[in-house]
């Protein structure tokens, strides 16, 4: 029998610690497959964030580095400037990238650092227990917005792709989702293009992946995908926001 699909060589054998149905695992797999398909796994250095994916360095089968909260783009900048022949990526959640690390990501993009960022947006802080994030939707209940996020108190959710697309140094910006197989395949194509942007030396690339947090949303894995589709995609439209081609 021929094997059509098997666990990517870009992942280690370590079982993921994520909750059942958490889409972090899907994105890990897509990133790992892209690195394998581009043939750069052995030349890749990843930077893990603080958050649920803090242990990502145990899962990617390439060299990994751990950064302080939100500082992954700064660490990646240093690595890439010292070893420009390496493929350098950061893997960051919305609490990491869109809150404490907004400064770092904006300036990494502004400087046109030739790194790739995979940005997981699940509209909540996962690891710390479901607090409101800058990306939490209006009306969404979290442990720190128990009546739902209000625009008057917290402002509207931050749209990272739209913001970074206005920066000249950012050369490839796309928002994708992993709520169904079609969108997951599109997400993989976007991640491939983002790494190609780096390999061709064009500049900064970022792929935002709309993801789920079944545990902190209080939904089962299947309901979480429905919630993502019905609530997140209307506010965070999928598509390409910047393309150097």
């Amino acid at each position, binding site marked *: *029998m*021929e*094997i*059509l*699909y*098997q*666990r*990517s060589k870009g*992942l280690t054998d370590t*079982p*993921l610690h*994520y*909750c*059942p*149905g*958490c*889409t*972090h*695992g*899907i994105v890990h*797999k897509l990133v790992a497959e892209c690195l394998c398909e581009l043939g750069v796994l052995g030349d890749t250095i990843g930077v893990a964030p603080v958050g649920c994916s803090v242990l990502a360095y145990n899962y990617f089968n390439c060299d990994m580095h751990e950064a302080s909260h939100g500082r992954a783009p700064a660490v990646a900048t240093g690595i890439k400037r010292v070893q420009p022949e390496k493929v350098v990526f950061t893997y960051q959640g919305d609490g990491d990238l869109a809150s404490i690390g907004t400064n770092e990501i904006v300036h990494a993009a502004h400087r046109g650092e030739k790194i790739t960022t995979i940005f997981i947006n699940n509209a909540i802080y996962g690891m710390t227990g479901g607090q409101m994030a800058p990306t939490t939707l209006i009306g969404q209940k979290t442990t720190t917005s128990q009546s739902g996020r209000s625009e008057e108190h917290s402002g509207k959710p931050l749209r990272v792709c739209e913001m970074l697309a206005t920066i000249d140094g950012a050369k490839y910006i796309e928002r994708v989702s*992993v709520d*169904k*197989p079609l969108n*997951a*395949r599109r997400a993989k194509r976007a991640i491939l293009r983002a790494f190609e942007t780096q390999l061709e030396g064009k500049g900064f690339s970022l792929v935002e992946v709309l993801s789920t947090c079944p545990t902190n949303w209080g939904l089962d*894995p*299947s309901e979480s*995908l429905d919630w993502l589709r019905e609530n997140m995609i209307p506010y965070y439209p999928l598509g390409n926001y910047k393309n150097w081609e």
Partner: protein
Amino acid sequence: MAKGSVAFDETYCKGCALCIQFCAKGVIELDTKRLTPKGYHPAVAVNNDECTGCENCSLMCPDSAITVFKE
């Protein structure tokens, strides 16, 4: 229609059932009579005859627990 089959590695499976949701052919079910070493009901192939090898289950499996074969 191409003929495929799926196999599950219970070291990784957490019984999230996303594979079941995205299988159009009803090939997969959760085995509610058994637990994996981690304490989850594992996904099992109950109807591999219907499998077309579309790879939707393996794509959507967050824990990369599924291998898809083509016959």
